[in-house]
């Protein structure tokens, strides 16, 4: 790895790996206990929940392995391509619906409006959004206990381009919390303790993937909601067509 890049990274590969291993305990534990419950109760209606949890665990592993590849291989890049943000959010939303239902979270898509194509690695952007949204879904019920369990995958225009992000009614989600989390990630069990009871690996894996695309994850607002998003540059080449 390029030494200059290594010093800039706030997380070393072994720390990332350890954190991912810790994070994967939760879905595997959920699957193990749900399977045990089905076995004890002989009630097969709960089996769809196990399937949803296992599918999400596989999606997370996909995102995690992508981030580890990026950490370990300086030549491995996520080259930008012309991508539709709306289609990425649409696909992520479809893949996350089953998990959201398990957590009683209403996952909404807010892609209304006409947006130009952007420059981003499509698979990387989708993996990062899935990682972010999974982390939010896990923590939302505990965070807004009794409140509105709504999560939005949304896009809006800003001065520098088009923002794609994940938003909820979580006022604690601010730049300071994200920056503090970046410093503590891999060193603390709960780097964003005001926001999440987990290691929030999905957030930091998304952060690493965005970094590999020369993008930066930041705290962002969408209407009255708080969240994390990334600013994407529009593809001017296609705008001319």
């Amino acid at each position, binding site marked *: 790895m390029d030494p200059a890049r290594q010093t800039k990274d706030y997380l070393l590969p072994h720390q990332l790996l350890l954190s991912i291993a810790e994070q994967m*305990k939760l879905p595997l534990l959920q699957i193990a*206990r749900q399977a045990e419950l089905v076995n004890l*109760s002989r009630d097969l209606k709960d089996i769809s929940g196990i399937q949803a949890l296992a599918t999400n665990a596989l999606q997370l592993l996909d995102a995690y392995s992508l981030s580890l590849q990026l950490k370990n291989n300086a030549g491995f890049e996520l080259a930008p391509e012309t991508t539709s943000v709306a289609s990425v959010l649409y696909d992520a939303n479809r893949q996350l619906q089953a998990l959201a239902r398990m957590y009683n979270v209403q996952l909404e898509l807010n892609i209304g409006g006409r947006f130009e194509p952007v420059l981003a690695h499509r698979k990387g952007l989708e993996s990062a959004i899935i990682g972010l949204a999974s982390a939010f879904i896990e923590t939302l019920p*505990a965070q807004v206990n009794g409140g509105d369990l709504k999560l939005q995958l949304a896009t809006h225009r800003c001065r520098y381009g088009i923002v794609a992000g994940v938003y909820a009614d979580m006022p604690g989600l601010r730049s300071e919390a994200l920056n503090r989390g970046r410093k503590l990630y891999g060193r603390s069990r709960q780097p964003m303790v005001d926001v999440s*009871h987990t290691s929030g690996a999905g957030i930091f894996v998304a952060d690493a993937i965005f970094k590999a695309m020369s993008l930066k994850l930041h705290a962002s607002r969408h209407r009255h909601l708080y969240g994390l998003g990334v600013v994407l540059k529009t593809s001017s080449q296609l705008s001319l067509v």
Partner: protein
Amino acid sequence: MSKRTILLIEPDVVLAETYRSILEKKGFRVRHVFGAQDAVVAADEKKPDLVICELQLVSHSGIEFLYEFRSYPDWRQIPIIVLSLVPMAEFKDSMFGLVERLGVVRYLYKPMTGLVELVREVDFVIG
């Protein structure tokens, strides 16, 4: 005899529903809360016979909660089972405090504690 009440402090919905389901099937009444503040409110409304607590909570550390919980005289004798994703080895230096000061009667590591074992431990403590 009235059902024994368990206060379950668990931030993960999926795990909470699984634990609640098996404990209710075994005849316990379960009140589930996500975090420390709600746990205090719930215990105030109905004094539990047992507390099952995760240590990784949003905003609060579970240990902080346990100290606060034990500060109320009425709740000093309520047994507490820690059921956590944090391995016990991380508490080896403070295990004495957990047991002696906070009255933790069992420390169960979630990945290694199946539902049958959880019910067995709960039965042993308050059954």
